[in-house]
C-alpha cells in the first residue's frame, strides 16, 4: 500500500468520524449528568435538514450551521421538558424524539431532496499540511473538523480540571447528594441535554452542508445510534471517544479501502460493517457485567424528583 493511499484513507477516516465524534461528545456530557438521551438520531436529522435549507436559501454556510445547532437545541429542549420536567421514562422519550425528528425532518425537507449546494471547502494549513501521512489527515480538513478537535480538547479539559465539570459528574453519580449540598441538579441536567442537542445539530449540519453536501431523507443512516454505542465503547472516557469515533469512521469507509486495494465486494455487504462493528464492540465491552456497571454514571437514565 503506497503512502498516498494511506494518507487519503486517514484523511477520509477523520472526515467520516467527525459527525460521530461531535454527537458522541455531546451525548457523553449528557450521560455524565445522568441523562440518557436516545434521541440523537432525531436531533442529527433535524440539524441536517434545517442547516441545509438555511444554507441553501441564504447562501451563507455559517447561518446554516448556526440554525442547525439551534434546531438540535430546540429538539433537545423538547426531550428535556418531557424527560426532566415531566419525569417521563428517558428511554421512551428518547425513542419518541428519534421517531419525531425522523418524521419532521422528512416532512420539512421533502421539497429539498437532491438540490445541490456548494459545501464547506477544506482549508489546508500552510507547512503543517505538508507533514507526511498525518498532514493531510489533521491539517487539510475543513473548519468544522478543526472545530471538532477544539471541542474534544474543551470537553476533555472540562471534565479533567474545571469546577462545572465536577458538578456535572456529581449530579450524574448521585443527584440526591448533589441536591443536598445545594447543587442545581435540574439546571445542570437541562444544560447538559442542551449541549448534547447543540452538538448533534452541528453534526447534522456537517453531514448536509459539508460532508455530503445535500439533503436526503434519513441521511444520518444510524450515526446517532452508533454514537450512542461509542459512548459505551469509550467507557465514558473523553479520550476514548475520539479514538472510537475515528475507528468507526474507518469502518464506514472500508469499501473505499477495499476498492483501493483492488478487491471487489458488494458495497451493500460492506455497508453493514459499521453496524456489525458496533455490535462486536458492545459485546466486548459489556461482557463483564460488574465492570460495565461501575463505569457508567450511577444515576444514568433514572429520573430525579426532588423530594423537598
Amino acid at each position, binding site marked *: 500500500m503506497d503512502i498516498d493511499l494511506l494518507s487519503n484513507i486517514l484523511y477520509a477516516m477523520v472526515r467520516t468520524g467527525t459527525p460521530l465524534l461531535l454527537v458522541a461528545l455531546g451525548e457523553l456530557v449528557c450521560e455524565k449528568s445522568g441523562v440518557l438521551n436516545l434521541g440523537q438520531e432525531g436531533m442529527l436529522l433535524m440539524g441536517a435538514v434545517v442547516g441545509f435549507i438555511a444554507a441553501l436559501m441564504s447562501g451563507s454556510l455559517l447561518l446554516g450551521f448556526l440554525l442547525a445547532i439551534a434546531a438540535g437545541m430546540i429538539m433537545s429542549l423538547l426531550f428535556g421538558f418531557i424527560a426532566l420536567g415531566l419525569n417521563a421514562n428517558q428511554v421512551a422519550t428518547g425513542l419518541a424524539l428519534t421517531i*419525531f425528528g425522523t418524521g419532521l425532518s422528512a*416532512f420539512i425537507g421533502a421539497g429539498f431532496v437532491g438540490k445541490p449546494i456548494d459545501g464547506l471547502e477544506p482549508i489546508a494549513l500552510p507547512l503543517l499540511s505538508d507533514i507526511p501521512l498525518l498532514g493531510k489527515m489533521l491539517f487539510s480538513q475543513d473548519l468544522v473538523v478543526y472545530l471538532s478537535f477544539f471541542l474534544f480538547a474543551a470537553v476533555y479539559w472540562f471534565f479533567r480540571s474545571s469546577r462545572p465539570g465536577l458538578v456535572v459528574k456529581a449530579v450524574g453519580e448521585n443527584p440526591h447528594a448533589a441536591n443536598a449540598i445545594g447543587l442545581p441538579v435540574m439546571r445542570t441536567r437541562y444544560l447538559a441535554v442542551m449541549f448534547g442537542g447543540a452538538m448533534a445539530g452541528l453534526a447534522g449540519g456537517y453531514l448536509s452542508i459539508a460532508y455530503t453536501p445535500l439533503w436526503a431523507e434519513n441521511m444520518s443512516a444510524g450515526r446517532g445510534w452508533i454514537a450512542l454505542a461509542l459512548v459505551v465503547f469509550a467507557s465514558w472516557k473523553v479520550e476514548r471517544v475520539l479514538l472510537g469515533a475515528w475507528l468507526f469512521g474507518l469502518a464506514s469507509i472500508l469499501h473505499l479501502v477495499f476498492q483501493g486495494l483492488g478487491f471487489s465486494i458488494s458495497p451493500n*455487504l460492506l455497508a453493514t460493517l459499521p453496524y456489525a462493528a458496533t455490535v462486536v464492540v458492545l*459485546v466486548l465491552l459489556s461482557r463483564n457485567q460488574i465492570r460495565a456497571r461501575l463505569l457508567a454514571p450511577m444515576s444514568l437514565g433514572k429520573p430525579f424528583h426532588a423530594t423537598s
Partner: protein
Amino acid sequence: MIKLEPRGQHSKLMAWLSPVLAGVLTLISGAILFSLLGQDPLEALHTILILPVSDVYGVAELCVKAAPIMLCAIGLSVVFKAKVWNIGAEGQLLMGGLIGSACALALIDAEGVWVLPVVLLAGMAGGAAWAGLAAWLKTAFNANEILTTIMLNYIALNLLIWSVHGPLKDPDGFNFPESAMFSDSALLPTLIDGTRIHWGMVFALFAVVVIWVLMSRTFLGFQVKVLGLDASAARLAGFREKRLVWIALLISGGLAGLAGIGETAGPLGQLVPQISPGYGYAAIIVAFLGRLHPLGILLATLLMALIYMGGEMAQITLGLPVALTGLFQGMLLFYLLACDVLINFRIRIPALAKPEAAVATIKEEAAR
C-alpha cells in the same frame, strides 16, 4: 406555577385516558399544522382520516396495512412486558420477508398446498433467528438490546438490498432490484375478491388472541410479567431469567417475521427493497399506545394504519409530503409520554390551592 404532585398510586383511569388524550392533542396539532400550511383544517382532517375508509376498498386497504403492524406490536407487547427493549421489529420483519422469500423462490417450480405453510414458517424462522441473535447477545454477553437490535435493523436492511441486487434478483427482470414473482402456490390468498385484504389479517387477529391467552392465562405469561415488574423477585422465585428473555424475543421476532413474509407473499407477491414503510417502528408506538394490552393494541393498530393511509391520501389529494405519516406518529408518541405523567402525578396549581390567594382572586373579581 404548575406543580406535579405524586399520586401515591397508579391511576388506572388515567392509564387508559392518556392515549385518548394524546390522540385528541395530535388531532388538534394536526389541525393547526394544516391551517399553517394554508389548508382548511377540518377539511384536511376529513380527507386524511375519514375519506380513506369511506368505502369497502378503503376498509380492506386499512386491514392490509394493519396486519403487519398488529403482528409486530402484539409480539412487542410480550418483550416489553418483560422489560426487554426490542427496537428491532423492523429488522426482524425484513429478515422474515427475506428468508421467507428466499424459500418461496427456491420452491418456485413446486406446487401443492404444502408450499405456502413452508414459506410462512421460513419467514417466521427468519424473524425469530434475527431476534434470537439479539437474545444471544443479551444473555451471553450482557449487550444492551436497544443498541444491538437497532444495529441489526440496519444490517437487515443492507442484507435485503444486497440480496435483491445479487443472489435473489430476477434473472429476467431487466436488472431491476427485485426478485421474480412467486408462484401461485406460495401466495397468500385474498379474503374478498376485488380487494387486497389477505390472510395476514386473520393471522394477526389469531396472534392477538393467542398472546392474550398466553399472557393472562399461562404460567409462562405470568413469569414474563414478573420478570418485567421485578427481576430480582423473578430470580428469587427460581424463574430462569435468560430462558424467559429468549422465549419473549423469539415470540416477538417470529411474529415480526410473519409480518414480513405476509407482505412479500401477500400484497407484494415478490421480494422488493421496500417491504416496509417503517411498520416495525410504528409497532413500538402502537404497543405503548395500546398499553401492551391486546385490546388496546387492536385499537391502536387501526389508528396507526389509518395514519399511514392518511399520509398517502394527503400526498395524492392535498399535495403534502407522505412524510406527514412520520410526523403524526412522532407527535402521537410525544403526547402520549407527556399525558402518561398524569398516571403517577396530579397537577396542582399552588397559587389556587392557597386559601388567601384564592380569597384574593375572588375579591379582585368581585371588585370588577
